[in-house]
């Protein structure tokens, strides 16, 4: 039986001013899978994610999330959609003026009517899940790069979202921390049955976690398929990447 896509993008065009960054991107992202978005620097990976999530407005095309067209939704309707999506930004994007625990509490306080003690329990659990149990009262400026990413991940999963989007989670991390983060992502997929979308360049990480690959090149989709299919494909750019870990 054919799986129903949780995110379906059709003919999406994205522009910065007059420059076209994505030209007619069509992809489906399936539930409870880890989809890795690959491509060289400047090929439009982050732009793709930000246009899907309406952080930027797509120039044209259709984006369906949970089966609903989101490009024409009003803000209130789209906020409902966003409350089911967590995002881990490239640099964490923690609010620097408040503590780690307060950062994690934001979505819980804003989108639930939970009592303070329940929220506090949830914060502790989420921080413990990312191995930051002892850092809840620290401020983002007091955390290392890896800790910031993990704290941001705790915030992204605070509401147990259906979809988790990670923009280069391994960037700037050492291989051990990066591997630990991958294990955590796999654990989340298994425990919370999340659909996870990851933008990454790390070949080792891709081999560990990817179910499906979307390969972008110069604003176009060059390849979509499973990891195994990606490893066997004869498309030169994809083949080069999986052979030597570099974009050809």
């Amino acid at each position, binding site marked *: 039986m054919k799986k129903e896509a949780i995110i379906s993008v059709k003919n999406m065009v994205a522009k910065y001013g007059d420059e076209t960054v994505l030209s007619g991107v069509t992809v489906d992202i399936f539930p409870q899978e880890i989809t890795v978005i690959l491509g060289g620097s400047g090929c439009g990976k982050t732009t793709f994610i930000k246009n899907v999530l309406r*952080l930027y407005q797509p120039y044209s095309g259709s984006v369906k999330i949970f089966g609903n067209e989101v490009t024409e939704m009003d803000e209130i309707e789209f906020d409902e959609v*966003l409350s089911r999506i967590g995002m881990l*930004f490239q640099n964490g*994007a923690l609010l620097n003026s408040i503590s780690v625990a307060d950062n994690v509490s934001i979505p819980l306080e*804003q989108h639930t009517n939970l009592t303070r003690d329940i929220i506090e329990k949830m914060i502790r659990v989420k921080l413990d899940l990312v191995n930051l149990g002892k850092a809840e009262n620290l401020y983002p400026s007091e955390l290392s790069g890896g800790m910031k990413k993990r704290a941001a991940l705790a915030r992204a999963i605070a509401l147990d979202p259906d979809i988790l989007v990670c923009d280069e989670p391994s960037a700037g991390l050492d291989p051990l921390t990066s591997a630990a983060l991958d294990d955590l992502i796999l654990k989340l997929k298994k425990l919370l049955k999340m659909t996870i979308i990851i933008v990454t360049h790390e070949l080792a990480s891709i081999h560990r976690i990817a179910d499906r690959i979307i390969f972008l090149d110069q604003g176009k989709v060059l390849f979509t398929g499973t990891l195994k299919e990606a490893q066997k494909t004869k498309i030169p750019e994809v083949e080069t990447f999986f052979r030597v870990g570099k974009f050809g």
Partner: protein
Amino acid sequence: MDIRNNTLLLPKNLDKTNITGLLQEITLQNLEVVKQIDAGELVTIDSAGVAFLDKLMEIFAAHSPQIVNLKAEIKQSYQTFSSLEVPIQIKAKQENIFVKVGDNFFAWLESSKQAFYLLADVFYWSFVGVFNKKGQRKGSVTQQGLLIGADALPIILLLSFILGLILALQSAAQLRQFGANIFVADLMAISMVTEMGPILTAIILAGRSGSAIASEIATMKVTEEIDALTMMAINPIRYVVVPKFHAITLVIPLLVTASTLIGIFGGLIIAVTYLDLSTVVFFNRVFEVLTLRDVLIGLGKSYFFAWVIVIIGSYYGFNVQGGAEGVGKVTTQSVVASIFWVIILDALSSIIFYF
């Protein structure tokens, strides 16, 4: 460099130390027919040397010369550093002055439209925020009130006191000549309440809080904190701007009142010590000349000044481009724009109420 049978013989080295001289030599010799470049002797070359070879190919392009006898290593360097295959970026066509003026005008229209939308958004969410605290962090209004109000109080008091002293002293010297000493109280009361108190407070707030608002929001934008709030379905205006708007609305009348009182007090010191007026006479005169209308005009316009500072700071913060440099740029722009609009609003209020 020698030339034999239309073949240019390259020297042993081609690098940044000798190519300028070689190029001059070729120009002076006015060589016209070179069909071949022999690199047999060439042993070392750097990227400047390769650029020299490219230049030779351009000079002798009419005969399409070939480079022969290139050693493998030299060939590799040549292929790596040659600019012949690198596409030339075409310079953007210089726009004429009318196009530039037109573009700037439309850019100004667009930014005015955005500022207006932001203004509408801030007023809407500030009004909603009074009744519904969802979308704001607990205690953020108090925190902002302390930052914008309490922390700014000492500098406002000090500068207002000094301004009061200066105003009174300079006018006292004139008034004394006509025996009109008592009018220093009129001058201090009217000028501090309707003009100096509100405008001095607004200018200090524009420099202090306006810049803080712009740089805080711009930094949040650059570090994707604003995007993170949006992704959590939290309206950034509601979460970041509204607490500042509420806080400044609460503290501005207090700051203006404090500034006005301390300024008048500065005037009193000059009146007592320099003009031999008594404190009772001074204050009797102050209360005699002041009307409720003056007080309301002074306080009323200070609200507009405060709102302009928050809106402009937020507008520039949200429209930051680039990284740290962009943050610095919008901070400066926001302070200049805030002070400009505070003075324009002040002029407008003077025309409306006193013309």
